[in-house]
Structure formats: C-alpha cells, structure tokens
C-alpha cells in the first residue's frame, strides 16, 4: 500500500470512514438544493440567456455588430476564445499530469476541475463558431467530401490545427471525465430511493458492478488516458498560440509563444479552479476533503506558472529590442506606453506581481487571500490576451489606418453571457453529479486520512489517531 510520511498533513481531515465519504459527497445530490443554489442558478441563467440573445442578434445581423473594424479584424472574440481555452487547461492538467506524477491531492479536486474544463472549452468553442457569422456552415471546417470541386480544408493552416486540437481536447476530456464518473454514478444509483433518480443514475452508471476485472481495466484505462492527455494538454495551447505565432504581425511573430501560452493557460486555469473550489467546499460542506493543503499546492502551481509567464513577458521585451527590428520594437513600446498602456500595466500587475506574493507562506495558506488573487489572476490573463491581440493589430504598418478598438454592447453581452452559461453548467454539475471522485478518494483514505494515518495499525480503528505533528488547520479534526 502507498505510504505517506508521518509529518505530512493528511489529505482527508477528521475521522472519516468509507461510508462517511459516500455520505458527504452524496448528501448534496440527495438533499434538496439550498436556496442559495436557486438564487445563483437564476442569476447565471438570466445572464446566460442574455448572452444567447446577443448571439442570436449577432447571427441575424452579421458580425458587424461587434466592435471590429478594418484594421482590427480580431479582438474581443478571439480574446475570449483564448481566455476560455486557457481556463480549460487546468482540469486535464490536474487529472492527467498529476496522475502521472502520482500526486494524491489531485483526487479531491480533479472531478470538478475537469467539469470546469469541459464547460470552459464549450464556451471557448462558441467564439470561433459565431465568428464564422454563418454558424450553420460550421461543419465546413471538417475535411468532408464535397461538391466544390472536392475542395479540402487547408491542412497547412494553424486555424485548422486548432479545429482538430480543440475538438480532440474536448472529446478526450469528456471521455476521461465520464469514465471516472461511471463508478460514482453506480454509488449514487445503489443509494437512490426515489424511482426517477434511480432510473436516471442507472442509465448514467452504465450497469457498473465494480468487479475486480472492471477495476483492473479501469486503472489501466485511467493511466493510458492520462498518458495521452498529458501531451494533448500541452499541444492544445501550443496550437492556439500558433494562430498568432505563425503570422507576420509584430508582437505575434514570436517563437516563445507556445511555452508562454501553455504556462499562462495553466496559470489561469488553476486560478479559476481556486475561485470555484473555495466557494464549493464551503457551500457543499467538503472542508474535510479540500482544505488548506490542497489550496497551498495549487497556489504553488500558480506561483510557478505565474513566474514563467513573468519571465516570458520580460523575454519578449528583451528580444524585441535585441532583434533590431524597428516594427517589433515599436509594437512593444506601443504596448507599454501607447493608448492601451492601462491594459498592459493591468496585465503586468495582475500576472507578474500578484503571484509572487505566494512566496509568503501565510499568504498562500490564507483562503481569503487566495480567493482574491485567483480573481485578480483571471482578470490579468484576460488582459494578457487583449493586449497581445489588440495592441499588435491596432497600429499596423500603415499609420493612416491606425485606429482603436472599442467593444460594442454585443461584444460585452456575448462575453458576459458565456460566463453566465458556464456557471449554469457548473451549478447543474454541482447539483446532480458527484463533485468528488468518490472511488479515488476512498483509495487514499487509509494512507492519507487523518484517522488512519499514523494510527498504530491500520484496520477499523476509528479512534486510533493521535501523536502526529500538530498543524494549524486541524481545527475540524473532530467533526465526525
């Protein structure tokens, strides 16, 4: 069995038995939803419907309703696309990369982080589709035999690579997530008493029985899916960065883009996970499973990737000067001191300075501070994409066509609407799906649960814990 050092904080606090884990996770599914859930769901739904309305107006009228112009043909839409894809990177990173590195703390957060990933990629996919204007010909991006002289899509184009990358990423994440969900749906199915939920969860559980052979396959499939999803995570945002890096626009034409985008994506994704998780653990009473140790680990990831992003910003500046290319140099001077200086400095403050505060241990272990920083980081990462995209375009080679980008109210409506829809999906997930990977959390209960860990002998010794080095957040060690 996996053993963990005695001085490590336990991953599961309190005296939990296997049954307690099931109870804690299923409670929110089986009980009535709290009033707060309905309030939040209502707000998210209204915002989401407003967004759908804006999209309908856009499709009916044309993309002229956006704030784009002749010089700036890409702005708010692709900013939002990259922002959402970036947020969608944390889930698979947590469940795949951390699985390969055998990081047990991922088990408390991977399920909901993956759900977040999938919903974020849904939102991301919306933007290129509606940017086509004619949504119904979206399937033209696929290499389907046709009657236009058998005209194929352009496989040399990074935009097509994106189509393949995003669709692979979305579908593989979905499968990975669902395969993990099947045994947990079986748990809910076996507990369900009312006929309709029983039927519903029976369908969802696919008749899972938990035989030894099933689990044998389950573990291998999880491992192999993690193995293929790991390079996939890195490839997806690399390919997103190729959309820019393979162009010849000063400020975009940079070889540093792929690693810099991937680090940025992980950075913003973890920030979003923190935002959601800190609220969820409180609202759903999961404090024993997602606690300061998990938050601290995620903050360390945020700190590391934030530092990579910071170094990348500085490298970009240095290389633009060192290249000796006048246009490249101007693009960066213009970013920092031109009309969009406020966006550039917001990005710098939010993304470079704020994660450095995580070096201070009490700060990275403070839940309130983490929550604030997680929102700051996501604002910063939105500005990063806006800065890269708009400031590189708005002053092109021809000063007579220099202009500014101002978002229209439809731009705003669509963006805010996707945030609303994202929360609609996430709230539905939190209400009806097991938000913790039940079967995985149970496997670490004995090696990292507070009541088993450091007990004289394992077994059913519910009160056998004691004598481990005391840590400051063990206040709820008797909340059985």
């Amino acid at each position: 069995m996996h053993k963990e050092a005695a001085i490590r904080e336990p991953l599961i606090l309190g005296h939990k038995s296997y049954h307690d884990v099931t109870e804690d996770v299923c409670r929110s599914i089986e009980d009535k939803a709290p009033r707060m859930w309905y309030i939040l769901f209502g707000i998210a739904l209204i915002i989401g419907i407003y967004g759908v309305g804006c999209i309908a107006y856009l499709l009916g009228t044309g993309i002229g309703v956006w704030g784009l112009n002749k010089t700036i043909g890409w702005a708010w839409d692709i900013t939002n696309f990259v922002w959402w894809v970036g947020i969608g990177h944390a889930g698979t990173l947590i469940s795949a990369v951390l699985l390969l590195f055998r990081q047990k703390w991922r088990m408390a957060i991977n399920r909901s982080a993956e759900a977040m990933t999938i919903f974020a990629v849904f939102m991301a996919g919306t933007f290129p589709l509606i940017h086509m204007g004619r949504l119904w010909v979206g399937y033209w991006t696929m290499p389907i035999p046709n009657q236009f002289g058998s005209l194929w899509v352009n496989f040399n184009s990074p935009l097509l690579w994106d189509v393949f990358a995003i669709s692979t990423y979305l579908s593989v994440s979905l499968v990975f997530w669902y395969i993990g969900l099947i045994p947990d749906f079986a748990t809910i199915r076996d507990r369900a008493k009312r006929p309709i939920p029983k039927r519903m969860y029976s369908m969802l559980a696919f008749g899972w029985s938990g035989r030894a052979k099933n689990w044998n396959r389950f573990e291998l499939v999880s491992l192999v899916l993690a193995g293929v999803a790991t390079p996939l995570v890195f490839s997806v945002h690399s390919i997103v960065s190729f959309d820019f890096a393979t162009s010849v626009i000063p400020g975009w034409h940079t070889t540093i883009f792929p690693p810099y985008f991937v680090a940025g994506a992980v950075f913003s994704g973890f920030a979003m996970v923190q935002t959601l998780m800190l609220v969820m653990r409180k609202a759903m009473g999961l404090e024993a499973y997602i606690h300061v140790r998990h938050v601290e680990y995620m903050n360390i990831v945020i700190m590391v990737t934030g530092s990579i992003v910071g170094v990348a910003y500085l490298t970009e500046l240095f290389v633009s000067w060192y290249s000796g290319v006048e246009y490249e140099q101007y693009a960066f001077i213009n970013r920092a001191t031109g009309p969009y200086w406020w966006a550039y400095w917001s990005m710098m403050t939010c993304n470079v300075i704020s994660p450095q505060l995580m070096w201070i241990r009490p700060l990275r272990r403070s839940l309130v501070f983490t929550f604030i920083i997680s929102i700051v980081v996501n604002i910063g990462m939105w500005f990063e994409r806006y800065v890269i995209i708009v400031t590189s375009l708005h002053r092109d080679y021809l000063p007579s066509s220099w202009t500014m980008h101002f978002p229209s109210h439809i731009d705003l409506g669509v963006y805010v609407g996707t945030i609303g829809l994202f929360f609609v999906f996430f709230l539905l997930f939190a209400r009806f799906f097991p938000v913790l990977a039940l079967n995985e959390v149970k496997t670490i209960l004995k090696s990292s649960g507070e009541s088993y860990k450091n007990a004289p002998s394992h077994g059913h010794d519910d009160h056998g814990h004691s004598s481990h080095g005391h840590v400051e957040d063990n206040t709820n060690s008797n909340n059985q």
Partner: protein
Amino acid sequence: MAEKVIYAMYDDDDVLKDGAKLLVAKGVKVSDVFSPFPIHGIDPIIGVKQTRLGIVAFLFAITGTLLATYGMRFFMIEDWPMNIGGKPNGTYLDNMLAFVPITFEFTVMCAAHGMAITYLLRNKTLPGMPAQNPDPRTSDDKFVIELKHSENSQFTEEELLSMLKQTGIIEIDQKEIN
C-alpha cells in the same frame, strides 16, 4: 443455467485481501471480488490477469497516425495540391512538418476513443445495462467475495462456509444466478 454462488461480505479491503489469500492457499477458487474502489494487490491473489487494453490503445493510436498521414497526403498532395507562395509542396515529405500537429491530435483522438469504447464493451458497461453487484452496499463501503460451487466442487458447502467464516466476514449470502 442456474448456478449456486456464495457471497461473503467484508467491511475492510485489507481484511478481504488477507481472507482471499487464505482461501486461495487452501485451494478455493475465488471467482470474483466486488468493491467500491480498486483494491490494490487483489488481482494476482484471485488470478485476474492484467488487462490488454494498453495494447488496444496502441493499435488504435497507430491506426490514427496512419489514417491522418494517408488522409493529409491525399487531400493536400494528391487531390488538390496547394501552391502557397511557390513553396515546395510536391511531395508529402516537403510538407510533412505542417502535418505534424494534426497527425498527433488525430493519433490521440483515435487512441483515447478507441480504447474507451473497447473498455466499455469489454466491461459490458453500456447505457441501460443492469447492475450486477450482489449488494447495493458494494458501491459504498462493503467488499464482497464471490465463490461458485461449480468451481469449488472438491469442497462441500459446509466446508466453504466454515473456511469463509474464519476470514473476518461480516455477512454471508447464497444465491442462485443465471
């Protein structure tokens, strides 16, 4: 054909593992174990072979690589060769670098979905399938060993039951299954 089986229930995975070891040492064939999560180390004890799904994934991956390579060669070189700024595009190799990302993505897509579908089919877990665990608690916190009479014909029923009772079971049940 109806078959008599014994279900012995445990409330701890380690107790079950020790029990299974004891039974197997006495020559009992344990036909299956039902558990709410994977019990590490149970497979060699009860003789469950390591799954070959990894090989399946590899085969699907190669299929994906070949399909993507062949497809892009056909689309871009054979059927409608593109001339972009006069850059060489007459052969697959000249253009190959541009095809790497999609070849990779398609490989991953085929490997992941091919393996996942095979996994669901082999486990017989598909929408609408009935659950087969003997007790609803085996997906919560209970662990069950399944013994079949037909596979343990050298022992009488009493012998099997008494051997099971020495292994720390909490409940025992006999059923006829088809």
